[in-house]
């Protein structure tokens, strides 16, 4: 067991776990940031997507020691103060979630897109979001929500 110091959502937090522990378990089970979800454990579904220094990464595939040298970690809980990030509001407007389990990861993945590319095309949205699975099949509404948040044109089909 070792003590790791993490910068999460603007706070410094210490956690005592074994080296090699996935960031996902540290966030969820040790620190109680349960908005980040476990879906597959092998980086295939994106339910655990968080930001590390602004980049979207899958928290199940990164070990705690690789994010404890001052990297800034952001989870869904830290995306906005009051759940009012433009993407969160757009997600509500589009009534995107169904079961909701994958949606934290979807929103974090979309947030990293808009930070790099504030006005993505539909094609750019689709290729950026392709690593995030949704079993309820909410993809069309996710695209719509990203477009609402980025001021893009909403085709009538969406």
């Amino acid at each position, binding site marked *: 067991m070792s003590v790791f110091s993490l910068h999460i959502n603007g706070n410094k937090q210490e956690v005592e776990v074994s080296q090699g522990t996935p960031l996902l378990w540290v966030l*969820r089970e040790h620190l109680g940031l349960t908005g980040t979800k476990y879906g597959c454990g092998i980086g295939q579904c994106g339910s655990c997507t968080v930001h590390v220094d602004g980049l979207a990464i899958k928290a199940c595939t990164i070990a705690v020691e690789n994010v404890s040298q001052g990297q800034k970690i952001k989870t869904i809980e830290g995306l906005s103060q009051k759940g009012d990030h433009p993407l969160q509001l757009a997600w509500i407007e589009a009534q995107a979630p169904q079961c909701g389990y994958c*949606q934290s990861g979807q929103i974090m993945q979309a947030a990293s897109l808009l930070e790099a590319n504030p006005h993505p095309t539909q094609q750019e949205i689709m290729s950026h979001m*392709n690593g995030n699975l949704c079993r309820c099949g909410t993809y*069309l509404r996710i695209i719509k929500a990203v477009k609402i948040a980025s001021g893009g044109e909403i085709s009538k089909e969406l």
Partner: protein
Amino acid sequence: MSQTTFIPSQISRRKFLKSSAGVALFIGSSGLLSQLVSCKNEQQVKAIIEKQKLTAWVQMDTEGNVTIYNPAAEMGQGSMTSLPVIFAEEMDADWSRVEVVFSPQEAAIYGSEGWGPNQKVMLSAGSRVTNGYYNMLRRAGAQTRLLFLQAAAKKWEVPLEELATQPGEVVHKLSDKRVGYGDLVSSLIMPEELPEINEEQLKNPKDFRLIGTFVPRTDIPAKVDGSAQFAADIRLPDMLYGVYERGRIHGAVPTLKNETAILGLPGVIKVVSIDHAIGVIAKTIEQALSAKEQLNISWSNPKAKGFHSQDIYETYQKVAAGKQQGNVVVDKGDMKTAFKRARKTYAYDFKNDYVYHAQMEPLNSVVQIAEDKNSAEVWVGTQQGFDSKLGVPGVLGLAPENVNIHMQYLGGGFGRRSMTDFVTECALLAKEVVPSPVKLLWTRQDDLTYGAYRPLSLQRLEACIDAGGKLSGFSHMIVGNGDNLLASGIQNEHYDIENQHAELRIVPNETRLKHWRAVGHGPNKFAIEAMIDLVARDQGTDPVDFRRRLMQKSPRALATLEKAASMSRWGETLFEGRARGVSFLERSGTLSTGICEISLDRDSGKIKVHHFWTASDAGVIVQPDNVKAQIEGGIIMGMSSVLLEQITIVDGAVEQSNFNDYSILRMEDIPESIETALITSSNTPQGVGESGTPLVAGAIANAFLALTGKPLLHLPFTPKRVLEALNA
């Protein structure tokens, strides 16, 4: 509206009410009960709840706030909004003051009668939730409204007939007086006998303010900021973590070879042997998972060994050809004579492989047994069931009333969460470490390999055309394992075919099976709808025209067909390389026609679906936007299963293990559009959650037939199978 966030440490199992403010009203199976109790008197509230057969209850306070206790599971289908909307509509509640919380899991109190006479069941499955609670919630809402009208009539000393309600208030137009429901709460009087509410006293659907309008789902705000609580998110003081190794072959019995070594691993507290698995309890999840990887287990040779899923079709074909008749489900007219007199007969075999639920939240639960071992607390996302205590009392030897189920959001259900294996397994762990709570987590690999799949089956269809060119006979035989899981959707009640026969031939095997969204409708409607097009095409008839004739006696079915055809402009000239296919079905009372447009990469064999149109008649639509979301999602899930999904079993062991080798549809493969039309009617709401999914296979197969002239006969339509079909 505020979202209820459940904080385990604050929950007392005897705490029934959110607060002690205001009054509680109780809803029985035929409407409101004649009891009105101050919420300050929690003992009396509790006594009524325990004595009476209730469906739900409602708490109203003097501020005008209304708390509705929702009896159904919320797995993304929107019950957390649609059921309260029905009650609030008739009560004329101010929706902005309504809060919705999960009711405790007590079937005798909250169960729906929609599953059968004289039986109260809490079960969120088969798309039956809205349908099952609709009438009783309307009656109860209307009676509640009447109580407010009576209280206002007394207060103002005016005749009841002069009063009306606006959302959240009673209005006396003649004197221009109005009073909020909250201000009337303390003067509500419950008559000894509540007046019966007849159909005319319910709102005319044209006066609905909530039903049929856009009401944002109450669960969505918490689902975009990470605060929505699933069972996997529960954390309790001193909570331990449990995992199991269940082996690769169902039915194998484990013997652990290195228990001492495992017990010596960091954090490991207990090793637990159960019939089908070895469990490990550890201080942290990562310690439990690490210990699981190091288990050295020898497995017995179970019956399932030697089973090869892809070879079983040969056996099924022999059974289909055999003389031994199975369970006859439909026997209408005289098939033999119809076939004898036929001008032309057709026969095709259709196949479908095993499919996995793949709900995004892997199975899990949390169980804590009290120090005196007389009671247990369970936190779980469940589709509920005929045993609303989920098998836990049996496993722990407790009385059902001493097991308290705390319902959480479900990260997808699709039928898998109506099983209870992931709950009883956790109880068996918790029993070993009383009074510590244990969180049992199934990894994705566990969830997939120890899944319970939609059954594989062979479907032998035969049809005949009479001298007049009419479809005169239709025969459908299913060979497989799974009884009713295979049979749903085999009927063709909306097609006017004089002679019909449907039969089930069961060949048992050891594979675990379960309802999967729309159950047998997926495979059966695929076979039926593909067969219809094969016949229509051979007869030189347009597939929509062919169905029009078949639907002459079912105007509701025909209306969905006409609507979908007109939405898609069926018959218009398409881009080169594109084609369309149509399919129709009935599921949980909803009638739907779907049309899709596809193209094909003839080199890779990959089918691209460009557009999907659906038209549905589902009775009264409580929440139109949510119904559309259900149909859109159902079609995406249908496309996923039809184009990609396949569980294969070799020598009894499932070959796939995770999303790397069991693909589900990703964003790049969705259609450009899914257009859904809802045909308005004033009939009781029907189930929609499962109506989209089984439309897909037939529509894609029929579009493929139109595009290539070749049939697709085996689900899923993987690129390899598509190429084989093309070259056949």
